C-alpha cells in the first residue's frame, strides 16, 4: 500500500499535478471558496445571511436582477466570442499565409486594441454614434445631421461590437501563433488535390488550429461576460444591464453578498461553456508539429487581393487607428470631449495653472510617473513570467494526466479568475497574506502580493495559450525522446517549450498587457510605495481630469505596444521565416 502511494507520488506527472493544483488552490480556489462562504449563512458554515440566493433566483426582483442580465450577458459574450474568433482568425490567416503588402504592419497594429482599455473603444464609439437620447454633444454622425437610431447608439449592438474591437486582437495573437506552426506540406498536399485557396483555408488550415480557435473562443467569452466598462457606458442609457453591471452595482451600493451570488452564478455559466467547448474537441488529435518541419507557403491571392486587403485595413482602421486617434486627440483638446475650444499640450507638459484642472500640472511633469512606469513594467514582466510558467506546467499536466478530476480541476481553476470580482480577489488576498498566519508568508504591503494577484487574475491567458500550442506538438516526438532516455523535465525543456514557444510568447504578451492595462483589483492591494500607471489613471479620472487620465492611458498603450513588438521579435527569432 505504502509503496503504491509512494510510487504514485514519485510519478513526475502526478507530482507536477500536485504542485500546480496547490498553487491554483491558493491563488484561485481559496478566493473562490471565500466568495461562496460569504453567501452561506453562518449556521451552515459561512459568513453571510444566505438570503441573497433567494433574492437573486426567486424573488420579484429576479427578472431584472438576474434573468434579463443573464440573457444579455450570454448574448454579448457569445457575439463577442464568435465575431472575435472569426475576425481574429481572418486577420491571422492574412498575416501568416497571404501575400498582401504591409502584412507585417497589420500584424503589429492588430495587437494594439487589446492594449487599449475597453472604455477607450467605447469612447471612440460614442464619438461617432452618440445620438440625442442622453443629451450633451452629439457624435460625428449626429453633428452631420444624421439621425442615429438608438439601437446603433446604445445597448446590445454597440456593447458587443466595441468588445469585439477589443478582443479580436486577443484571438488574432492566439490563432496567428497556431497558424504559423502549420507546415507547408499540409497545405501543399491539399492544394495538389486541386482544392481552391478558400477551401484550403476553411477546410484544412482552420480545422488544424481548432485548439487555438477554442482557446480564443473561451477567452473572448469570459472577457465578454466579465467586462464592465462597455455595458456601463453604452448599455445603461437604454437600461441594458448585464450580470457584470448588476454585480458591480450590488457591490458598490454596499450589498456585497448579493454581488458575490451573481459572480458565483457567472462562474457557473462559464464552467458550462468550458465543459461544452472541451467536449466539442475531445478525443481528436490536432498535432501538426511532427518533426518534419517545412516552411509555410504563401498563398497568392490574385483577384482576391484587393477585397482582402481592403477588409483587413478597414478592420485595422476601425479598431486601432480610430480609437487611438480619438484617445490622442482627447489629451490635446482644451476641453474634455470637445473640439470647439481649441487644442493644447498643457495636459502633457504644462506647468501648474490654477485656471486649468484645479492647478494640476501636465502628466509628464509628475515626478511619480517615471516610478509608476518602472513599477508597471516590472510588475508586468514578473507576472508574465510566473503566469506563463504556471500555465505551461498546468497545460502539460492536462496533456499527460489521465484523471478527469485533476485535468478538469486544473482546466476549471485556470479559466474562471476573470469572473471573480477584483474586489473579492483582493479581499481574499488580504485574508491569505495579510498577517502571515499559517503556512503562507506575510506579503501584504509588498510588491510580491501584487505579482501573486496578477498571476491569479491573468492565468487564463497563460493556460489557454499554452494548452493550444502544446496541442499542436505531436505525442510521437515526446515518446521518441522518452525512448532515448529523456526525463520529463528534459522533454519539457528541450522539446515542448521550444516547439510551442511561439504560442507561449504570445501568451506572455497577453498577460503582460492585461496587467499593465488595467487591473481593478490592484487598487485594493497597491501601496503608496508602489504606484502603478493604471492606478494613476484612476486617480485622474476620479477627479474628472479626463485629459490627464487619457494621457496616462496612452502611455500605458505605448508600453504595451513596445512589449508586443519585442514579443514578436522574440517569436520571429525562433522562426525567422515567418512575418
Amino acid at each position, binding site marked *: 500500500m505504502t509503496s503504491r502511494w509512494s510510487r504514485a507520488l*514519485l510519478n*513526475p*506527472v502526478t*507530482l*507536477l499535478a500536485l*504542485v500546480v493544483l496547490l*498553487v491554483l488552490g491558493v491563488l484561485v480556489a481559496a478566493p473562490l471558496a471565500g466568495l461562496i462562504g460569504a453567501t452561506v449563512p453562518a449556521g451552515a458554515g459561512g459568513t453571510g445571511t444566505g438570503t441573497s440566493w433567494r433574492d437573486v433566483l426567486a424573488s*420579484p*426582483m429576479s427578472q*431584472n*436582477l438576474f434573468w434579463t442580465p443573464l440573457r444579455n450577458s450570454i448574448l454579448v459574450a457569445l457575439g463577442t466570442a464568435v465575431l472575435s474568433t472569426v475576425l481574429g482568425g481572418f486577420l491571422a490567416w492574412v498575416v501568416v499565409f497571404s501575400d498582401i503588402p504591409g502584412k507585417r504592419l497589420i500584424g503589429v497594429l492588430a495587437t494594439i486594441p487589446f492594449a487599449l482599455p475597453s472604455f477607450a473603444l467605447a469612447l471612440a464609439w460614442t464619438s461617432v454614434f452618440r445620438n440625442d*437620447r*442622453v*443629451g*450633451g454633444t452629439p457624435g460625428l454622425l449626429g453633428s452631420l445631421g444624421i439621425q442615429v437610431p438608438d439601437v446603433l447608439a446604445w445597448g446590445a449592438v454597440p456593447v458587443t461590437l466595441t468588445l469585439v474591437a477589443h478582443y479580436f486582437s486577443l484571438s488574432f495573437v492566439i490563432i496567428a501563433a497556431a497558424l504559423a506552426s502549420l507546415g507547408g506540406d499540409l497545405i501543399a498536399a491539399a492544394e495538389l488535390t486541386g482544392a481552391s485557396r478558400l477551401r484550403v483555408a476553411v477546410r484544412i488550415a482552420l480545422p488544424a488550429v481548432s485548439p487555438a480557435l477554442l482557446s480564443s473562443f473561451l477567452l473572448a467569452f469570459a472577457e465578454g461576460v466579465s467586462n464592465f466598462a462597455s455595458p*456601463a457606458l453604452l448599455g*445603461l442609457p437604454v*437600461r441594458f444591464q448585464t450580470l457584470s453591471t448588476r454585480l458591480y*452595482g450590488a457591490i*458598490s*451600493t*454596499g450589498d456585497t453578498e448579493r454581488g458575490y451570488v451573481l459572480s458565483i452564478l457567472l462562474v457557473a455559466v462559464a464552467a458550462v461553456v468550458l465543459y461544452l467547448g472541451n467536449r466539442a474537441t475531445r478525443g481528436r488529435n490536432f498535432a501538426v508539429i511532427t518533426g518534419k518541419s517545412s516552411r509555410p507557403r504563401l498563398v497568392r491571392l490574385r483577384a482576391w487581393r484587393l477585397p482582402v486587403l481592403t477588409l483587413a485595413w478597414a478592420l485595422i482602421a476601425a479598431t486601432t487607428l480610430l480609437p487611438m486617434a480619438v484617445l490622442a486627440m482627447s489629451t490635446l483638446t482644451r*476641453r*474634455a*470631449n*470637445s473640439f470647439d475650444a481649441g487644442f493644447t499640450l498643457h495636459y502633457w507638459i504644462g506647468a501648474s495653472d490654477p*485656471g486649468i*484642472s484645479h492647478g494640476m500640472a501636465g502628466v509628464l511633469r509628475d515626478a511619480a510617473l517615471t516610478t509608476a512606469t518602472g513599477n508597471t513594467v516590472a510588475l508586468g514582466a514578473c507576472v508574465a*513570467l*510566473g503566469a506563463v*510558467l504556471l500555465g505551461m*506546467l498546468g497545460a502539460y499536466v492536462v496533456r499527460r494526466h489521465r484523471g478527469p478530476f485533476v485535468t478538469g480541476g486544473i482546466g476549471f481553476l485556470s479559466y474562471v479568475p476573470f469572473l471573480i470580482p477584483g474586489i473579492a480577489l*483582493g*479581499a481574499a488576498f*488580504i*485574508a491569505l497574506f*495579510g*498577517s502571515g498566519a499559517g503556512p503562507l*508568508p*506575510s*506579503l*501584504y*504591503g*509588498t*510588491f510580491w502580493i501584487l505579482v*501573486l494577484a496578477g498571476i491569479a487574475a491573468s492565468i487564463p491567458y497563460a493556460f489557454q495559450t499554452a494548452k493550444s500550442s502544446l496541442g499542436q506538438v505531436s505525442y510521437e516526438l515526446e515518446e521518441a525522446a522518452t525512448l532515448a532516455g529523456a*526525463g520529463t*523535465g*528534459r522533454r*519539457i*525543456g528541450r522539446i515542448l517549450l521550444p516547439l510551442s514557444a511561439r504560442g507561449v510568447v504570445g501568451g506572455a504578451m497577453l498577460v503582460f498587457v492585461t496587467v499593465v492595462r488595467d487591473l481593478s483589483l490592484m*487598487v*485594493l492591494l497597491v501601496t*503608496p*510605495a508602489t504606484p502603478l500607471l493604471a492606478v494613476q489613471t*484612476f486617480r*485622474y479620472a*476620479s477627479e*474628472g481630469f*479626463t485629459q490627464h487620465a487619457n494621457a496616462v492611458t496612452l502611455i500605458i498603450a505605448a508600453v504595451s505596444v513596445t512589449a508586443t513588438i519585442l514579443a514578436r521579435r522574440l517569436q520571429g527569432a525562433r522562426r525567422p521565416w515567418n512575418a
Partner: protein
Amino acid sequence: MSARAAIPVLAAALPLTLVLSACSSAGAGTTGTDAAGHDTQRYDAMSHEELVAAAEEEGEVVVYSFTSRIATVAEEFRKEYPGIAITEHDIPSSEQIERLASEHAAGASTADVAYVSDAPVVVTQLIEEGVLLPYVPPRMDDVLPEEHKEPLVTNRLSTKVLMYNEEAHPDGAPVENLWELTSGAWEGRVVMVDPNGRGDYLDMVTEMVLRADEMDAAYQEWAGEPLQLDDGVENAGYQFLADLYANDVILVDSTDAVNEAVGATGQDNPPLGFTTYSDRRDNEDEGWALQVAGEVAPAPGIIFPAMLGVTADAQNPAAARLLIDFMMGDDSADGGPAYAPFYVPGDYPARSDLQDPEGALPREEFAAWPIDPEESAAVRGEVADFLLTIQ
C-alpha cells in the same frame, strides 16, 4: 517511474516556487497593535500640544482617502509638521470599505486614518463592526453641530441635486416641483446615475422615500389633488420613483456623464439631471452651463457627509488624531490652507463657524435634505430592491 525521474520535474517546478515564495522575506512584517479601550480614551482626551508631542514621537501617519485632493492636504501637513511623515493613498469608497474590513479581519497592517464617503455603508460595515472609531478634536466640541460628530466626524458635506442648463434656461430652473419630472414634458429628458450602481444616488432616492410625507405634500401642491398610490406601492416616495422610471428616466454610469448631458453648451433642448452641485465650478473649464434648481419643491436632492475616522488597529493613534484635527481646518474664516482643497462653492463645511464658500447658495437658503446615515442604512436595501422591480 523512478525517484530519479522526479528530480527534473522538481527542477522544472522550482522556478515557479521561487517566483511565488522566495521573496516572502520581503514581507512588511508589521503586526497590528490593539488599541485597547483605555488607550483610545487617553488619546481622545489629549490636548493639542500633548497630541503633537505624541504624534512626533510616532513620526508617521498613513491615510486612505476617497478623494485625490488628499495629496494637497498632505503637502500642507508636511509643511506644518515636518517631523511626521504622512503617506496618503487614494482609494474609492467601496474599495476602501472592503479593504479596511479585510485588513481588520486579517490583522494586517492598515491605515491610521480613513477619509470616506458612502456613510450608510460605513455605518453598517465599519462602525458597527468596530473597524473605525470616532474622534472629535476637543476644539471642535463647540463649533461642530451634534449631527456631524456622529457616527464619525464630518469635515465637509457634498451633494446630489437637480441641476439644469442655464444657457438654455437663462431665467431660472424650468421646473418648480420634482413631480414635474414625471410628466410628459420631461419624458426621457431626466438623467441620473443608476441608483442600483452607485451609493450616493441610492442614498438620494432613499431620502425621497424617507421623506414620503414631503413628497406627498409636493404632489398635492403640483397636481392640486391628493396622490393616488398604485397597487403595492407603499408611499409617495416610492410612487415618485415608479413614475420617474415609467417616464423613461435615463440612467448613466458616472456624474461626469450627467454633467456632460445636462451642462454641455449649445443644446436646444438639454435634459435635467441629478449631479454634484460643486461640479458647477468646472463650467468654464469644461464648457458647461450647469446651475442648481435650488428652489424645486420639496427639495432639490440630498446633502451628505464625508467622514473621518481612526482605524481600530491604528499604528499611530496620536498622529491619526492630529491629522483629523488638521483636516478640520484652522481658525480662519475659510479653514486656512489645510481646508482649502475642500473649500469649494457647492460643497459645505460641516463646522458652523466657517463661512460658506462664495459662488453658491448659502447653506440656509439651500433646501437639500441632509441625510441621516443610520436611518438611511435601515431602508436603502428595500429601496434598491423596489427599483429592481419597476425597471
